[in-house]
């Protein structure tokens, strides 16, 4: 069963058009408080977790088929080279093929020790960041914008690896900001570090 969760602090109406286009037969849920990202240690979208029939995590949070090819996008024309587009599609297919293999045969599920090692490590700062993010989004929702911005900024300062927190805060400032010049500058500042670390699955050379 697919459970698709929208990490969208603006809530239902923001997610509605995308969900209605997809006409999903699976669960499509709205997570305004980024609860799932908190619980599973996620930092970006799309990230996915694989859970077996016994309710155990068999693949901790990892990039769900996206790649860093977008970083080479021509920002004026907003296009990628044909080679990059093809590589991007191949990666998405490789990830979805792995998911299908797992569903049909159990392949790619990690043994408990390996899964445990791959779980994200939550630091004191990250735990505090989640608390600031929760307060900041609540304050936004209740019209206390200046105070909200302080807490959302503190969340990102404490958990700089969380693109979810930073981009959500930007989007709450104004729809579209999450993909604006500040976003591209922050991506560029990654340097050689990945935006979407690839999963350890077939088709993802590391």
């Amino acid at each position, binding site marked *: 069963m697919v459970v698709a969760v929208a990490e969208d602090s603006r809530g239902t109406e923001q997610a509605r058009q995308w969900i209605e286009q997809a006409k999903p037969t699976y669960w499509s849920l709205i997570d305004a408080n980024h609860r799932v990202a908190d619980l599973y240690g996620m930092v970006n979208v799309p990230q996915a977790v694989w859970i077996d029939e016994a309710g155990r995590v068999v693949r901790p949070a990892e990039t769900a088929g996206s790649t860093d090819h977008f970083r080479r996008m021509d920002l004026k024309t907003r296009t990628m080279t044909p080679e990059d587009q093809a590589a991007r599609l191949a990666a998405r297919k490789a990830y979805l093929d792995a998911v299908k293999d797992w569903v049909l045969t159990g392949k790619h599920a990690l043994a408990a020790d390996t899964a445990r090692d791959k*779980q994200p490590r939550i630091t004191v700062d990250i735990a505090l960041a989640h608390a600031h993010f*929760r*307060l900041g989004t609540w*304050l936004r929702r209740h019209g206390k914008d200046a105070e909200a911005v302080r807490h959302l900024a503190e969340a990102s300062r404490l958990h700089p690896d969380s693109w979810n927190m930073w981009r959500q805060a930007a989007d709450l400032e104004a729809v579209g900001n999450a993909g604006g010049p500040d976003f591209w500058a922050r991506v560029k500042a990654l340097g050689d570090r990945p935006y979407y670390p690839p999963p350890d699955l077939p088709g993802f050379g590391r």
Partner: protein
Amino acid sequence: MATILTEAGEQVVTAVDGLWLTAADAERVTGWTLKPEGMCRDDACVPLPASATRDGRVDVAAFWQRLGNPVLHDDAAETWVLGLGADARNDALADLHAPDFTLPDLDGTLHTLSALRGRKVFLTTWASW
């Protein structure tokens, strides 16, 4: 009145002097019960310092921090966050049980992850931004 944001959701309670709550409200909000031994949940009890309990009331902020969890509030001290500390989060991740949650769909119908026990679940996230 104070609004308290926790893992479970949002509650409005009467609070004085910060986050001093009645024992009943403290239990409702935290899931821990005030007993002579301290604050207790299941088989565990955490002693409370004398400064954190008085006349059947509990300093929930002090108790929550004693558990190793972050506590935040807005400037007016009217909205509080009782967060989850790093140790608690890492323990939950280490035991590999998929943390449960309940979220609404577009129609507002609530769905709980654990209802899918017995099936493989591909849990994925996305965003409009």
